[in-house]
């Protein structure tokens, strides 16, 4: 065994670092590092910078504008981006719809939609979850009824992340009500400016507007917005989920988060000593640091096992569960570290312009809000309970 990067991998990592050093706008990195809120423009700006370098769509083959990377390169790239404080790539168009179109889309669909994802003409969001069907996608109720060369769509989607920034939504809809629950589902592309679409904010417990409900009332969708065959939606959905899971452990975010936490724990004092030297706090920190050291290697092992690309199977459930546990624990310790200064909730201080309105140690302004916001990690994208069910069945045969 050899855990070191190969010369090629090292060179790649150096190239990514150089790119980030030269191209990542410092004000974006500052926002990410301090847990401040990113605007739609911030995200679009970072997409454009990556697109200019040809590194935006890391899962796509070269012919459609992807960089042609393997899983280890993607891991290195994502890791370095997180360490540098780069914003997260908004995954819905690039990492979710893109691979679906490449595999299931018609040639005209690919030619039309893929470039628009890369150049930012379209901002996609995801229409999967419904109020009655969170982790249980097979029970979804939104219907699409064929009417001439259109589908007429009725129903409600929820937890639509960044839907208020999007102009389009890919959507699972029921096209055959008589089929078994997992059959009769289709994959449809909907313009959000169509009549009958209403996007309503869902405010999360930290006061953030990030997710939405999308109400669909007699929305007419041209039939050529169907991806794949009618009633093939379940197959496509499963395929898409595997892509959602490629960077699921979020190692880079955790490494960066741990560094931020350590900075805070060195700066904050308790009993006249830096908090990082408090035995109980140090033990909590060490436990999560060790867990993360192990998880890095677990993630690389999974990647190495996925020869030549593609997405890992039930192992991705492992990475999801452990990755979210580690990230949540790091955020929990960050909140603990700032002590009473976790309480103040100064919304202005969550922007770059208002950062001087913060009270308490550096990093305190966003500590509690981020902790609460990221409780979502273990719920969304297939809850950790669902992941355990999958592992129990597929890995352990229970």
């Amino acid at each position: 065994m050899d855990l070191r990067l190969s010369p090629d991998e090292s060179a790649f990592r150096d190239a990514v670092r150089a790119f980030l050093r030269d191209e990542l706008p410092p004000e974006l990195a500052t926002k990410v590092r301090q847990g401040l809120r990113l605007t739609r423009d911030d995200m679009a700006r970072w997409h454009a910078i990556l697109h200019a370098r040809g590194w935006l769509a890391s899962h796509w083959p070269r012919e459609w504008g992807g960089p042609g990377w393997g899983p280890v390169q993607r891991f290195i790239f994502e890791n370095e981006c997180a360490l540098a404080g780069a914003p997260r790539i908004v995954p819905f168009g690039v990492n979710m719809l893109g691979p679906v179109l490449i595999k299931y889309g018609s040639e005209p669909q690919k030619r039309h939609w893929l470039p628009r994802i890369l150049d930012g003409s379209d901002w996609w969001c995801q229409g999967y979850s419904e109020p009655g069907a969170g982790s249980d996608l097979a029970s979804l109720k939104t219907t699409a009824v064929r009417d001439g060369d259109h589908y007429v769509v009725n129903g409600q989607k929820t937890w639509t992340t960044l839907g208020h920034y999007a102009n389009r939504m890919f959507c699972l809809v029921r096209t055959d009500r008589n089929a078994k629950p997992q059959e009769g589902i289709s994959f449809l592309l909907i313009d959000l400016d169509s009549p009958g679409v209403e996007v309503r904010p869902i405010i999360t417990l930290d006061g953030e507007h990030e997710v939405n409900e999308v109400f669909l009332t007699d929305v007419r969708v041209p039939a050529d917005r169907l991806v794949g065959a009618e009633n093939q939606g379940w197959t496509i959905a499963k395929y898409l989920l595997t892509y959602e899971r490629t960077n699921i452990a979020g190692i880079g975010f955790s490494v960066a988060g741990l560094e931020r936490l350590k900075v805070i724990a060195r700066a904050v004092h308790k009993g006249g000593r830096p908090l990082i030297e408090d035995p109980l706090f140090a033990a909590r920190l060490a436990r999560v640091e060790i867990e993360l050291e192990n998880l890095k290697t677990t993630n690389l092992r999974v990647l190495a096992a996925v020869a030549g690309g593609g997405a890992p199977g039930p192992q991705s459930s492992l990475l999801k569960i452990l990755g979210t546990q580690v990230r949540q624990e790091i955020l929990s310790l960050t909140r603990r570290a700032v002590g009473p200064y976790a309480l103040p909730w100064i919304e202005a201080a969550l922007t770059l312009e208002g950062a001087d309105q913060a009270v308490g140690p550096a990093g305190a302004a966003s500590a509690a809000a981020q902790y609460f916001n990221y409780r979502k990690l273990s719920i969304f994208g297939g809850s950790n309970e669902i992941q355990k069910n999958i592992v129990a069945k597929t890995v352990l045969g229970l």
Partner: protein
Amino acid sequence: MDFSLTDDQRMLADSLDRYLAQRYPIDRRHAAAATPQGYDVDLWAGLVELGAVPALLPESAGGLGGGGFDIATVFESAGRALVIEPLLGAAVVGQMLARADAPQAWAAWLERLAAGAVVALAHEEPDAHYEPTHVATTAQHDAGGWVLDGHKAVVPHGGQAEGWLVSARLSGAVRDAEGIALFWVPRGTPGVSVRTYPRIDGGGAADVTLTAVRVPADALVAGPARARQVLAHGLACGALALCAEALGAMEVALRMTRDYLQTRRQFGRPIGSFQALQHRAVDLWMAVEQSRSAVINAAAAFDGDDPLERDRLIAAAKATIGRAGTQVAEESIQLHGGIGMTWELPLSHYAKRLVMIDHEFGDEDHHLARFIALSREREARA
């Protein structure tokens, strides 16, 4: 042994619960939290009228109770309704003024306090991280009065207080146990600057900065000889109150979670029929039962005559609550799934409050370390 409340305590709890259930829907709480004063003035008046504040104070301070179980009763009700009104300051400051060097000198303030004046303990400082003896604020004798300088961190309702009870150091180094005194600083005293802000769990707080603040000689609530024990008593009272509040909030969060598990269906059945979720709900129930016992132990010790044992069992309770409260908060959200993450669902506000209680008057680790130190002290004494 007797685990029942007195008739007075039971009646007070019933009337508070009824009043809050009727008059304090969560939207009213949200609206109040968004106002500059950070609480609902009318509701506060109503709580005062029902006797919530007198119950927190001993008869010697013009109150009607003030014992550990009185405090626990009021704050458990407050926790059930997620009250953001300034009960904590009233309890802590009232209990401390009642133990002042010259309690009779504070009778007028205690009267105002019992009538609903907002007051606040200003003790915690930046970089104290809950260490009770960490006082960098200084007090210097000057022309028959005192001059105070320092910075007090995250004072609950600190921006609305009509007076602050301020700890300041007469002598010694920043973390010395000796040399601390307590002063009363009324609102409007020159040199006090207040930076108010909302709190993530609702309500308001403030950082209070004192710059060459002059107060008269009789502003001294407790000199170095007594201040240490008065402060210890106040911190014990605050921790006890928060433990009881957390207990009330946990009860409700658990009930909401149980109801959700019973009614929400997925995969064709109530999610509460899934055994993995059942067992986790049972873990929460057990944590709440143990928390209730911890609060009882703490309240009884608060009334006892052994300050060491009081502080040891209150540390045990706050450590218990710190752990259990966070567990109940995190698991309640998780068992609710996405809906538990939303502002709209009251549960999420219970969860926030439960986690944030661990950031007031010392967190789980602080009180675990304190329990260890006090247990050792007790053994050395024995």
